[in-house]
């Protein structure tokens, strides 16, 4: 199992086994390089732990534990876990500030705990097999233990082709599950119990406080969240995209690394995706030592298959692939740890979909008003809605669900309907197997938690519990970082920051249509005005042009051929060949066509890599 995931931990490996239990660990050494070997046990060797990730407040926790009489044999953050468990039992997790997946064996109670961090930064998968529980950080470590290839979970495929990610514990493989963020599993006497120890909840704790007061508290919290995330016995760098979030982040890091701030960025030869100008602005402002990687179409298609082996799920955009190339450069330059601005959009209300939700709510009060609909122009300046008749085109997209603005998924209905068009390519066989709709699965899983939220909070919740853990932190985050043995750290996702922001009134996040209002207000002195006021550009990478290039078609498009499409059976081969022909004629330019192409190609690749080749590392080496 461990040999399949040595990219996550190339520095060391360790094992513990006893009657009925075996723990294995591949280590990426970052804290306590000499004595941080895992598994680690407590004083009387009755509690054993392996864990992936970081406990950022380990110094404070260690000090408290020593005061209460515990003896430490290492300086690692791992050892804090065993002693905390001794004192607090299962509640130990509530004291951790960090990103983690933990497996803890309590020999006295013959009890195994599996725990995952609050927001889903570090992965943890499991399956039941022959009365055993098998778990690992990546699915490819589980597959070799099974007697046969896994099969594709068609309901998860349906969910991915609707939301970009599967729902709840589902993975793209039948019978293999992920432990959800903020969850703990107790496995004892053959029985498995899962409970949620943390949820993305909103309160009114900071309603009525002034902007200045809130900004002061927020800056202090962000400062501390960054400070403890710089704890490492190896050099730490930061990603700088040129957007507001990474600029705020690098400004915070700069306070602690004035003379040795190291930053990394990615750009594209295709200038329509490139943000290099804003990156330069911030590099000059901070004087950082910066490395930039420029990515070509060929870079994306050449790394596509390898990236899918790391991601272990279909994707609808190629955007993760360049992030894997970026972490490769980071690692080559001797860095194992980077801080990134991920999470700020979810926590502080930055996404266009939040603006869109506000406008659509306003519009829903008078659906015939072209003035109200025209506000969408603020959001998408390229929309031509100067003609009153064009309202009907806007309504066809943004007007979906306008008749019920209080519905649970009001904010996301237009987007999901658009993504779901990719399912028009499903084969008849797959359609016949689908017994439950993706939205019903979503509703079953999340409706109870969303019952008392307003529309803005619902939209924030959906982003934070779906796309963020299910795609941004995983497919585009952890998997693309760990591909090259690099750890990402996310100060905006410190749970103290989230809980503080979730207690603010929604208007402090989006003031009229000014996104991330309070974050900008708090950090306005530390980031150039040009970046504070810039138009938000979502990170994207070229999709279709990466595979169908002027200099020829990528080898990986072989998986779109009739032979493979028929053999795997997920898609209608005639429809796929028409899409490919449309692409070859240069007519496939829409988001839908791009998403369909990447969705189909990545599903084919996942089936090839994990069902046909059993996830074998040698397959990827060969390619």
């Amino acid at each position, binding site marked *: 199992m461990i040999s399949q995931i040595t990219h996550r931990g190339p520095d060391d490996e360790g094992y513990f086994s006893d009657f009925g239990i075996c723990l294995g660990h591949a280590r990426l050494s970052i804290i306590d390089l000499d004595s941080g070997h895992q598994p680690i046990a407590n004083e009387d060797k009755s509690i054993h732990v392996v864990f992936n990730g970081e406990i950022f407040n380990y110094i404070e926790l260690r000090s408290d534990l020593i005061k209460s009489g515990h003896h430490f044999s290492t300086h690692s953050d791992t050892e804090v876990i065993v002693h905390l468990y001794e004192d607090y039992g299962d509640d130990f997790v509530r004291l951790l500030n960090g990103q983690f997946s933990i497996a803890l064996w309590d020999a006295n109670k013959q009890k195994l705990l599996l725990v995952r961090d609050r927001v889903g930064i570090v992965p943890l998968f499991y399956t039941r097999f022959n009365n055993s529980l098998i778990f690992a950080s990546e699915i490819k470590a589980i597959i070799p233990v099974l007697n046969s290839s896994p099969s594709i979970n068609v309901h998860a495929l349906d969910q991915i082709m609707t939301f970009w990610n599967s729902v709840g514990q589902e993975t793209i493989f039948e019978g293999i599950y992920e432990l959800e963020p903020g969850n703990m599993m107790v496995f004892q006497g053959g029985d498995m119990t899962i409970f949620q120890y943390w949820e993305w909840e909103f309160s009114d704790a900071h309603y009525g406080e002034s902007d200045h007061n809130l900004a002061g508290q927020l800056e202090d919290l962000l400062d501390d969240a960054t400070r403890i995330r710089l704890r490492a016995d190896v050099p730490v760098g930061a990603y700088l995209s040129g957007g507001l979030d990474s600029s705020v982040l690098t400004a915070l890091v700069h306070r602690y690394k004035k003379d040795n701030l190291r930053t990394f960025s990615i750009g594209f030869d295709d200038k329509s995706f490139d943000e290099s100008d804003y990156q330069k602005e911030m590099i000059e402002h901070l004087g950082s030592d910066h490395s930039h990687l420029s990515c070509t179409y060929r870079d994306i298609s050449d790394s596509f298959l390898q990236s899918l082996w790391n991601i272990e799920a279909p994707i609808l955009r190629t955007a993760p692939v360049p992030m894997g190339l970026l972490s490769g450069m980071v690692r080559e330059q001797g860095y194992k740890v980077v801080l990134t601005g991920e999470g700020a959009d979810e926590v502080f209300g930055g996404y266009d979909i939040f603006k869109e939700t506000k406008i659509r709510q306003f519009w829903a009060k008078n659906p015939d008003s072209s003035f109200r609909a025209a506000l969408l122009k603020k959001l998408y300046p390229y*929309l031509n809605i100067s*003609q009153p008749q*064009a309202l009907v*085109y*806007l309504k*066809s997209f943004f007007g979906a669900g306008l008749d019920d603005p209080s519905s649970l998924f009001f904010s996301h209905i237009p987007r999901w309907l658009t993504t779901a068009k990719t399912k*028009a390519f499903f084969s008849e066989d797959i359609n016949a197997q689908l017994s439950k709709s993706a939205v019903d699965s979503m509703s079953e899983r999340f409706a109870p938690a969303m019952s008392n939220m307003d529309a803005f909070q619902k939209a924030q919740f959906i982003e934070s519990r779906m796309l963020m853990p299910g795609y941004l932190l995983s497919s585009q985050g952890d998997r693309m970082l760990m591909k090259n043995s690099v750890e990402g750290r996310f100060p905006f996702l410190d749970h103290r920051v989230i809980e503080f922001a979730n207690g603010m009134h929604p208007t402090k996040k989006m003031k009229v249509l000014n996104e991330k209002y309070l974050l900008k207000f708090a950090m306005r002195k530390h980031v150039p005005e040009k970046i504070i006021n810039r138009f938000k550009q979502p990170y994207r990478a070229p999709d279709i042009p990466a595979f169908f290039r002027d200099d020829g078609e990528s080898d990986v498009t072989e998986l779109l051929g009739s032979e493979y499409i028929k053999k795997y059976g997920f898609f*209608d081969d005639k429809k*796929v060949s028409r*899409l490919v022909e449309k692409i070859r004629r240069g007519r496939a330019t829409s988001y839908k066509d791009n998403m369909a192409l990447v969705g189909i190609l990545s599903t084919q690749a996942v089936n090839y890599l994990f069902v046909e080749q059993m996830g074998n590392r040698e397959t990827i080496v060969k390619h």
Partner: protein
Amino acid sequence: MAIREELRDYVLDNYLFTDDQSKLKDDDSFLETGILDSNGVMEVIFFLEDEYGVAVAQEEMVPENLDSISRIVSFVEAKNG
């Protein structure tokens, strides 16, 4: 081939990815059926301009002219007089 047939084949081929003629009726609304969104409409306009030399003015880009096979055929025929 008549404009009507060419247009039907174009929409079937490029947006429904099929040659099954029963999937598209001449009066089906592109917007109501979800066959085309505003991006798709732009692509159809490019097609009309390329294939039939029709110049579509900004104010003509409205559903009354472009929302079904029948409407487009009438629009193109009127333009080409």
